[in-house]
């Protein structure tokens, strides 16, 4: 079955440094991969989508890479700020393009320390 793995431990990063989060998956070849941010007690919020033919995508201080050979995506936050502290979820479409919903990783809790 499809498996998505994210760093299960909390990630502590010093303010101003680059935070790098990892998402690994097995048993599937997704057409795209997504990253979401979730704050405590709130629903996830979409951040970025990267397609299988894209190596890298950027949005402001965020950068996502997608290596379909390694079956891995890396999510980077540069010049990190305490306000970036949240849980970050990666998600795959395992339906092959249908509207069957996304499968989510369990998330990585990121803490940016002042």
């Amino acid at each position: 079955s499809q498996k998505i793995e994210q760093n299960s431990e909390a990630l502590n990063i010093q303010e101003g440094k680059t935070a790098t989060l990892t998402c690994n998956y097995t048993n599937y070849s997704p057409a795209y991969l997504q990253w979401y941010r979730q704050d405590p007690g709130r629903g996830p919020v979409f951040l970025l989508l990267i397609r299988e033919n894209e190596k890298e995508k950027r949005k402001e201080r965020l950068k996502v890479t997608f290596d379909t050979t390694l079956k891995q995506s890396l999510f980077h936050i540069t010049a990190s700020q305490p306000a970036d502290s949240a849980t970050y979820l990666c998600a795959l479409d395992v339906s092959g393009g249908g509207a069957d919903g996304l499968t989510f990783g369990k998330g990585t809790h990121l803490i940016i320390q002042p």
Partner: protein
Amino acid sequence: DVKVTQSSRYLVKRTGEKVFLECVQDMDHENMFWYRQDPGLGLRLIYFSYDVKMKEKGDIPEGYSVSREKKERFSLILESASTNQTSMYLCASSWGVGNEKLFFGSGTQLSVL
């Protein structure tokens, strides 16, 4: 901005009660989803719908049913609530054929006593 509204932020029910969780979206999205989120288990898909009156089972449909009588509204029904259904329930919607960019509601924290 797209808004996905869940009717209750917190809900406390008793074992055996029939529970309705309501979700409304205001962007004419075709697709709507119900997830539950539990510590250590992450988000799991319960049911989804890609059109009015259509519904499909997700990964954990047992003990739940859904209703989609209007495009903007997707209801999750717990036929007979049990304590193991205590969870955060999240509704989401998306546009188009695929699952690109889901918009989530703020969630309903349901406690079944």
